[in-house]
């Protein structure tokens, strides 16, 4: 049409100002986060905490914004946020859900589309020994393996390297080569508030989550009648703004968890097994609820997700390399 108009009117089509035209905007990179976990290891709670914090992050991270990409995600997030406000806990047999979000202006990582699935686990299976879900795992993206040490108990915790075997076998069966396409695996220790012998430094790290503290501070100030934007809000956004320092801390904590797990037979076997398979391994720890004060399917106090963004940060970092 413009060619015809150009000839007729002798005019050139309008050129958009700025570096990109409307049709030329680069599509945000897609980050698919594969989350694998045995039944009861806190997958749905973690995802609730993660979705909640990806929204709340806007309060403390300048320029950042996160929103859902489809009505299904929008409804799911609204529903989980309401459930968290009502101090509800996820049902044991949570239904399948896909979360599709756009995360904008994440400084170091730019814009990303995030796709996460909460479904019957395709490697470890579902409730009451249900067979693994039928969907194909995308082994090319960073994989978060959620592991609740409190759920395993002393005996099973001695066999975490064997659990890694399940994962390795599933990937091999899908035809992925560990040498040519190394697995990027983030081992996420869930329900870390309940780990009794967690080293003091790691427990302190978990408690001192600057993002969780800011969200809590905001909630308390709102309860006193202040509105967002009020000067009384003094968010400590340094840790978020300076990504380098947050990532340095992530690295330190990864090292400390590796050393702590490595001091046990199962932990050292896990690391050796991962090394033998060229797995790019990262460790982090989270607490989705912030406490175990619950009864009758409800929290007795508010949800307080701690460090639930760390696995996402690791995934973005691993994917960027």
């Amino acid at each position: 049409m413009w060619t015809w108009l150009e000839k007729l009117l002798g005019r050139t089509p309008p050129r958009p100002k700025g570096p990109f035209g409307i049709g030329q905007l680069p599509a945000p990179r897609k980050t698919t986060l594969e989350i694998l976990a045995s039944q009861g290891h806190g997958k749905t709670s973690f995802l609730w905490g993660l979705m909640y914090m990806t929204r709340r992050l806007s309060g403390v991270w300048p320029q950042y914004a996160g929103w859902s990409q489809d009505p299904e995600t929008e409804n799911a997030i609204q529903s989980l946020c309401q459930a968290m406000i009502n101090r509800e806990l996820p049902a044991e047999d949570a239904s399948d859900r896909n979360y599709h979000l756009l995360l904008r202006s994440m400084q170091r990582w730019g814009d990303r589309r995030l796709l996460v699935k909460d479904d019957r686990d395709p490697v470890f299976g579902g409730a009451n020994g249900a067979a693994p879900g039928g969907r194909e795992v995308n082994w090319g993206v960073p994989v978060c393996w959620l592991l609740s040490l409190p759920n395993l108990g002393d005996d099973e915790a001695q066999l975490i390297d064997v659990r890694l075997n399940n994962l390795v076998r599933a990937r091999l069966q899908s035809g992925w080569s560990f040498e040519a396409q190394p697995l990027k695996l983030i081992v996420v220790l869930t329900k870390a508030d309940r780990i009794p012998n967690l080293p003091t430094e790691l427990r302190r790290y978990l408690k001192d989550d600057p993002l969780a503290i800011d969200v809590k501070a905001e909630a308390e100030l709102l309860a006193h009648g202040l509105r967002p934007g009020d000067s009384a809000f003094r968010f400590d956004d340094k840790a978020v703004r300076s990504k380098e320092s947050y990532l340095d801390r992530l690295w330190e904590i990864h090292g400390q968890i590796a050393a702590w797990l490595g001091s046990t037979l199962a932990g050292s076997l896990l690391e050796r097994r991962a090394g033998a398979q060229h797995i790019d391994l990262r460790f982090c720890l989270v607490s989705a609820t912030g406490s175990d004060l619950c009864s009758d399917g409800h929290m007795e106090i508010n949800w307080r997700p701690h460090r639930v963004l760390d696995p996402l940060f690791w995934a973005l970092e691993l994917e960027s390399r």
Partner: protein
Amino acid sequence: MSIDPFRYDPVGFPMIWIPDIRVFVHCLPVTKIQFEQFLCDARDGHFGARWYDDILRLNPRTTARRIWKGNYWNALLTGILPAETERFAAWCGDGYRLLEADEWQSFFRSMKLRDVRSLAALGILGELGLRQRELIENIEKSVEEVCAAAGEECELGMRMLLRLGVMEWVSVTGRENHRWGGMGEPHPSFCGNLFIPEKGELILPREPESRRLPSFGFRLAFDPRLVEDTEKPGTVAA
């Protein structure tokens, strides 16, 4: 040895004088053997065998000899409602009451500042009965082991279970709709948590008057100002 003034409650458990808030405070949260003395005297039907069975279902009992680092919280009375702690306080006598939230915080800070490395060094164990002494010493030893496993220094506040103990009911003022709250930091095996008592974190459960929480216990204060002709600190024995 420290010369901290102290007194004993009616069951022979030590209470330490806290000058900042001018009250005596139980050195440990109230234990089951303390509360059982009250149960023997309670005659109104509320605190019957069924009541205690319900409590023990939430946090089973253990004897002093069987206390170790993996169960010492079983020796403490938890699952109790705030109103029931008031009944126990009334039984203890005039001047006994729950701590207020800011008093608990002052108590915590006060213990943090003391350069005392054991409960024995406080001078509170000397005149204890055998049963009480064995219980307190075994709890302290268990906490020392927990601290050693985590690579943490075992401060006086931990020995008194202000951390690594249970949530403790405190009375709350100035907060609409909230009369009771909890302070403390339970052992993670007893109740997972990330509470920070050193920052005065107050936990407000949704239905404190009616819902029994397995990790919630209490300790009492004795306020001499509420009692006429009370004895001076450090002179009262069981």
